[in-house]
């Protein structure tokens, strides 16, 4: 019965081909440092899932953002868990992505033919930092507010275009309702979409070139 269903689906979807194409490739000899990319992907998915669930109760308006987060923490069953995972997962993701980047750098895995993988990876790191920066404002507590005041001020000291960057980031001259709603939009739509696309490209390049073997003493 299950066998028949599987065969029916496989003839149409091609599980076996997909498996061969996506997963069945030679790996260099086991090394835990090589698992950091998968760990980053796992964290990205985890952040996506918990983030989607947080939007059920979160409200991106200065009047309600703080209260809605308090409600998630104290009023909703397991709200503390969902937000806790999102909160700590965010910190962990920045850390894991950065260590992943260091691993690639020190094992010189960015060299030919993997330059593009490295470039897309660098973009992924910056996007991850962007997620951290925009997400930090959303609880709208004192720390979030002032961190955003300082963070956007840093953009404001760029020579020449500084004031423009500042206003573009804040949606005006002040950190306001406009800042909160545009950070929310960037945090849940723009950056995740860009991240997902870039991750797809990153994974495609890894499948195409395989993972780099660690250099041995003889190399």
């Amino acid at each position, binding site marked *: 019965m299950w066998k028949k269903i599987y065969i029916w689906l496989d003839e149409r979807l091609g599980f076996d081909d997909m498996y061969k194409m996506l997963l069945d490739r030679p790996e260099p000899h086991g090394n835990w440092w090589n698992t950091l990319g998968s760990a980053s992907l796992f964290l990205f998915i985890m952040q996506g899932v918990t983030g989607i*669930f947080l939007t*059920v*109760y979160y*409200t991106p308006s200065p009047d*309600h953002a703080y*209260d*809605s987060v*308090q*409600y998630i923490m104290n*009023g*909703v*069953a*397991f*709200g503390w*868990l*969902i937000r806790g995972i999102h909160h700590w997962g965010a910190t962990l993701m920045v850390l894991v992505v950065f260590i992943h980047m260091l691993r690639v750098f020190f094992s010189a895995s960015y060299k030919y033919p993997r330059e593009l993988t490295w470039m897309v990876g660098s973009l992924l790191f910056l996007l991850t930092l962007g997620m951290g920066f925009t997400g930090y404002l959303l609880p709208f507590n004192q720390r979030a507010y002032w961190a955003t005041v300082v963070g956007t001020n840093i953009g404001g000291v760029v020579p020449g275009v500084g004031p423009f960057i500042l206003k573009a980031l804040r949606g005006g001259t002040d950190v306001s309702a406009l800042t909160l709603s545009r950070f929310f939009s960037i945090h849940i739509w723009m950056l995740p979409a860009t991240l997902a696309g870039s991750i797809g490209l990153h994974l495609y390049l890894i499948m195409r070139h395989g993972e780099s073997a660690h250099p041995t003493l003889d190399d």
Partner: protein
Amino acid sequence: MASNRISRRDFVKVTTAALGSIMTVAMGIPVIGYLIDPALKTESGEAWIPLGPLENFPIGTPTPFSFTRSNINGWEKTVNSYGGFVIRESDTDLVVLSSVCTHLGCTVYWLEDKQQYECPCHGAHFTAEGEVIDGPPPRPLDEFEYRIEGDALSILFKKG
């Protein structure tokens, strides 16, 4: 002997499936609880709402009254309005009706010339005592429990 040993590949498969299932259940149950939590909360409460001295409600004609109740929903306070009619038949004998139509919850109003309540949504009519005359309502208008202390009339508001 060899048949009792699990191959490395099978071990990895089983371990991955087991850990994956544990993680799915460990996350799935809290997530379901998180999503349906508002549906599991019961909000109930009753309160005596003072409607003022009896002389405000003349004998014979239904006199409208209204009051508001606030409710905390999540992080926000919601204020709902309620209303009804007091029908005094004698000094102490009275009926307090809710103005919520028993069909789909629209607010009925009193037609002085016809001596009927009319519902604006589907044109149902009720007698002054709340009995259905025509239209789709399945039952008479709901009554409020009331008490009279001295000269002051209060009704019992029930929620939940």
